[in-house]
């Protein structure tokens, strides 16, 4: 089970409301490579993962992603709190505003709702860990794109922190892949070995 700590993992303090930036950043809240999907993906994959080291990173990174989900929520909140109707119109934020006002809702920048179709939990150790490595890179690219689009240093600072976490997670999942490969049936030359019927459990 989980318990909550009343703090952000890294500070978010944005001085100026800016719905144009909110429209972009919200994609990491509920978009295809966002933090909600990341957390649901890793926490769902834990059950069928045969190796305790990899269960550990899925559990702990899946938990950290919830903290990132909260940071993105805080960024979007601070970018939309106190915005004027003129700012809403000028930013093209009307589509979001009419449905959610200044509420926070998991959607992509395109407006598409968050969906479990963004993630996979395949029940195969190699399949899942490789998906996770790709997911970290996709999130890192998204943060790079946000940094290309956003000038406000108050937004860039926590976004840079989140981008770096994607790199660390990719590294840890890469180590997870090595651990899985080392423990697979050594007679299988190829780096595939379905965990459903072939894994040496320990």
């Amino acid at each position, binding site marked *: *089970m989980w318990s909550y700590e009343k703090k952000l993992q890294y500070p978010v303090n944005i001085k100026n409301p800016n719905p144009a930036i909110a429209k972009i950043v919200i994609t990491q809240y509920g978009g295809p490579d966002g933090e909600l999907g990341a957390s649901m993906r890793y926490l769902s994959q*834990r*059950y069928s993962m045969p190796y*305790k080291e990899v*269960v550990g990173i899925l*559990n*702990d990174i899946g938990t950290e992603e919830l903290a990132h989900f909260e940071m993105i929520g805080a960024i979007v909140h601070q970018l939309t709190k106190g915005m004027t109707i003129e700012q809403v119109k000028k930013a093209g934020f009307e589509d979001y505003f009419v449905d959610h006002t200044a509420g926070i809702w998991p959607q992509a920048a395109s407006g598409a709702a968050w969906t479990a179709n963004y993630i996979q939990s395949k029940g195969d150790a190699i399949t899942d860990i490789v998906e996770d490595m790709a997911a970290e890179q996709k999130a890192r690219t998204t943060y790079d794109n946000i940094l290309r689009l956003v000038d406000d240093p108050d937004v860039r600072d926590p976004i840079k922190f989140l981008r770096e976490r994607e790199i660390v997670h990719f590294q840890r999942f890469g180590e997870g892949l090595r651990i899985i490969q080392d423990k697979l049936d050594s007679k299988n030359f190829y780096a595939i070995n379905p965990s459903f019927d072939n894994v040496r459990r320990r």
Partner: protein
Amino acid sequence: MNELLRRIQYLSFVLVEVNLYLDTHPTDMAALNYYHTYKALYNRALSEYTSQYGPLTPGTVESRNRWTWIDKPWPWEREA
């Protein structure tokens, strides 16, 4: 299930339940005292469990020779 873990499970459920009640009744002294009484029981059970069986959270790892956080069983595994 380990009896001490079962005790932690019900004590922490007591805390969750009183927590929710206190969220909407923050000045109810009887409930607040109840919370602190059970929090003390929970703390005692938790440290007893941790020193005997290992950590329930990464923050309570006590071992100095290896990282025991990843040790089995994970909570969703069927009991032997």
